[in-house]
């Protein structure tokens, strides 16, 4: 469907596109514009004073530069780690339990309830940190760029891992065979064939991580200290500390410029080539030949180190959950869990309900947006793609505030309802799903869809029976991400939670601010368990629905 005749040819899709635009318009564009107006219309006139004021301040200019630098480095490191892990599970012969273990560990940092992991990190790498003591490193100052970078890279690399794995698994190993038979060493074949074919995933993962890091204020809030101001944190402080909503919002809008730039770059980068590796003529079923001894060694070493570090951090949390008073009275106790089940049951249930509602909606939305923008030629497809990314690239606080401003007065009043929380999650965290499905779609030969159409399936039928099952790994990745964030995200929802809905992470945050470290840890442990259980169920559910395709290549 390269021609622009989709609309004429396929009127059935028009309602779909209209619905998408309505949804995006309502939950992304409308709040965005409302916030823009609040920010830049002063006394009924357009005024950029807010922005000017902010950027006349050299500290904020520094913050912008820092933000971009941080986002670039986090995107690079996170994508690198994600790629290495993806290689481990798809291109190295490992026993299945070990692969599952690796994949499971990478989920941990994603779950990392806000603040708990940062605390664990400061306990290990901070002043007097356990790891520093162990290795006898004296003067490492975690507060600043390094701490933030380490923490964000660690937190976000799983996003890259999920995106890249689903694409890597679908690369036909016959192509690698071809490279080998032309005399390339396993490593060179990896570099010249496998790696470039993963480009759609890499580009999208970079985009995601860049936006993620650009919008994240929580990590820098704890770890950046004052020498390394970043913009989202500045915006947050401006709003909550200086009670200056407009200034804060204005700062956040500045973040959109680099995000847009990366978006355009990524599109350009990916659009120039073809990455179709899932075709209608299957090569022979073949085993992956790996990436060579040296490559394998490096990959395994990196994985082992990162996994050890992650496990260490989370072990601290688990220990925290079982000790009376961390660092003081390290005796074993169930008290924290008793507290959690006493006081946290409603939060658990509420959180689960919200996550369980958001996830399927988000999944559907992600795959439809990706499909329509990639496969159908409707006007403003590129715009739709970018709009869908907008909420992701803005700091959560700002999105939260935009939502209250937009949905707290007529015509649309949603505050206090669950739907506003669900909408905030779906339209913010769906980006991961959208981007990874897009990356995955690049791999699929359009002739498969043509075949389905020619066999009498409608566009919708084709989508359901052919496209969807082929992008299931990517979609599943996106849905997991959305689910996890629906369970753990806090920045946007702090403004949207209402008296009738209480969320787990809000409780964790409370425990942290009230210095109940043990309770916070216990909550975190429960959260982690819940996420694992539900993730597993999600996977099983999708399998049970008959979606079993896991790519022609790789092991996963």
């Amino acid at each position, binding site marked *: 469907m390269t021609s622009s005749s989709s609309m004429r040819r396929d009127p059935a899709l028009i309602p779909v596109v209209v619905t998408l635009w309505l949804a995006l318009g309502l939950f992304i564009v409308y709040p965005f514009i409302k916030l823009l107006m609040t920010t830049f219309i002063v006394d009924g006139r357009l005024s950029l004073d807010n922005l000017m004021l902010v950027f006349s301040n050299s500290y904020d200019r520094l913050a912008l530069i820092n933000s971009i630098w941080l986002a670039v480095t986090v995107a690079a490191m996170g994508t690198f780690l994600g790629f290495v892990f993806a290689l481990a599970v798809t291109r190295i012969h490992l026993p299945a339990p070990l692969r599952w273990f690796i994949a499971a560990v990478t989920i941990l940092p994603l779950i990392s309830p806000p603040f708990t992991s940062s605390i664990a990190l400061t*306990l290990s790498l*901070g002043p007097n940190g356990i790891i520093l003591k162990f290795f006898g490193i004296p003067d490492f100052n975690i507060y600043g760029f390094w701490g933030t970078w380490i923490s964000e890279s660690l937190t976000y690399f799983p996003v890259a891992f999920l995106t890249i794995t689903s694409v890597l698994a679908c690369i036909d190993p016959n192509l690698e065979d071809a490279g080998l038979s032309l005399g390339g060493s396993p490593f060179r074949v990896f570099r010249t064939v496998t790696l470039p074919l993963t480009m759609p995933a890499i580009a999208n993962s970079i985009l995601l991580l860049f936006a993620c890091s650009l919008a994240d204020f929580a990590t820098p809030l704890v770890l950046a200290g*004052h020498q390394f101001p970043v913009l989202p944190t500045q915006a947050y402080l401006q709003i*909550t500390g*200086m009670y200056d909503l407009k200034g804060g919002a204005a700062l956040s809008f500045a973040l959109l410029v680099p995000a847009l730039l990366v978006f355009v770059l990524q599109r350009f980068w990916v659009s120039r080539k073809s990455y179709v590796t899932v075709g209608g003529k299957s090569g022979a079923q073949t085993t992956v030949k790996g990436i060579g001894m040296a490559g394998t060694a490096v990959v395994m070493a990196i994985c082992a180190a990162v996994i050890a570090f992650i496990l260490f951090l989370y072990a601290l949390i688990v220990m925290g959950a079982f000790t009376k*008073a961390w660092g003081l009275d390290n005796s074993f106790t169930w008290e924290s869990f008793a507290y959690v089940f006493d006081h946290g049951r409603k939060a658990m249930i509420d959180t689960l309900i919200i996550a369980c509602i958001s996830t399927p909606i988000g999944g559907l939305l992600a795959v439809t947006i990706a499909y329509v923008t990639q496969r159908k030629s409707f006007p403003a497809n590129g715009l739709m793609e970018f709009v869908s990314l907008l909420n992701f690239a803005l700091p959560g606080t700002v999105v939260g*505030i935009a939502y*209250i401003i937009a949905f*707290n007065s007529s015509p649309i009043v949603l505050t206090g309802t669950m739907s506003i929380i669900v909408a905030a999650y779906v339209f913010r965290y769906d980006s991961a799903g959208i981007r990874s499905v897009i990356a995955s779609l690049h791999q699929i030969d359009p002739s498969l869809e043509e075949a389905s159409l020619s066999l009498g399936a409608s566009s919708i039928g084709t989508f359901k029976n052919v496209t969807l099952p082929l992008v299931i790994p990517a979609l599943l990745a996106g849905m997991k991400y959305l689910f996890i964030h629906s369970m753990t995200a806090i920045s946007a929802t*702090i403004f949207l939670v209402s008296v009738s809905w209480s969320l787990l992470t809000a409780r964790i945050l409370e425990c942290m601010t009230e210095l109940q470290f043990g309770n916070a840890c216990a909550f975190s442990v429960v959260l982690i368990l819940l996420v694992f259980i539900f993730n597993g169920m999600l996977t099983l559910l999708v399998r049970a629905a008959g979606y079993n395709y896991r790519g022609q290549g790789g092991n996963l």
Partner: protein
Amino acid sequence: ATLNAYTVMPEKYASKVFEQFTKDTGIKVNFIRFSSGEALARLVAERNNPQVDILLGGPADIYTAGQKDNVFAVYVPKDQKLTPAEYRDPGNHWTGIGLIPLCFLTNTDFLKKNSLKAPESWQDLLNPAYKNGLQMADARTSGTATERIYSLIGVYGVDGAFDYQKKLHKNVQLYTKSGAGGAMPIAQGQASSGIFYLVDALDIQQQGYPVIITYPKEGVTFGIEATGMIAGAKNQEEAKKFIDWATSPKLGQFFVDQKINYIPVVKGVKITSPALDMSKVKLLKVGAEHKGDKRKAYVERWINEVIR
């Protein structure tokens, strides 16, 4: 009848308070807790269609800041006279319910290791032994931090206060987002000392960590925990009942009975806890002109002069 509320008090206190209120009046309360800045941001954003009826707790200055956006309603509580005038808004937007002084919180292991005495003067914190060891709140997010500035102004005057902080900055390891954020690291020995509201310091001490609470002999200021009604509240009657209840001796006595570490301001409540006994502490009063409007200027000055 129900009442919807935001609170800035810690959850564990707020839930007890509201429970008692329900017991006393039969009015059910739904509430959520926020940090003070978040609470205000949310109230401002919801101005056109307020979701709650009252705000409980939080320093008086967020109430002052909120007045600009007409967030709070004017209401004169029944027992207004029982609260000294200096602890309530002359415009009747808010009324104080408790005081919390600043204090120093120091890790005793650290003191032992360095053979130091617990700090008893602001100047003690400038001791190079504390280098890279102090954690305290960031002025941009935390009421605790602004209170710190007011105290210093009270002691050293405006310019002197900033000069002092510039020196102090050399010893600071981290400015935390929340007022209490540094308390746990001090308890754990990651940091040595810091400046906190007494509530937070007591919290950590009562958990049994090796910390000591001291006060600077030059004096400290205190924050006023307040409460107020939201403009356009949907449950006006219930809101008024709550404000009446909260500003009456009932709540003050409840603080004392439940060992909630605020110092009640309402007349007729006797303080029993030795930790809240302020008789040996020099408490400073900062003129209203410094709070409110000046606050923003101070914070900016703090950003530009201290942390850079």
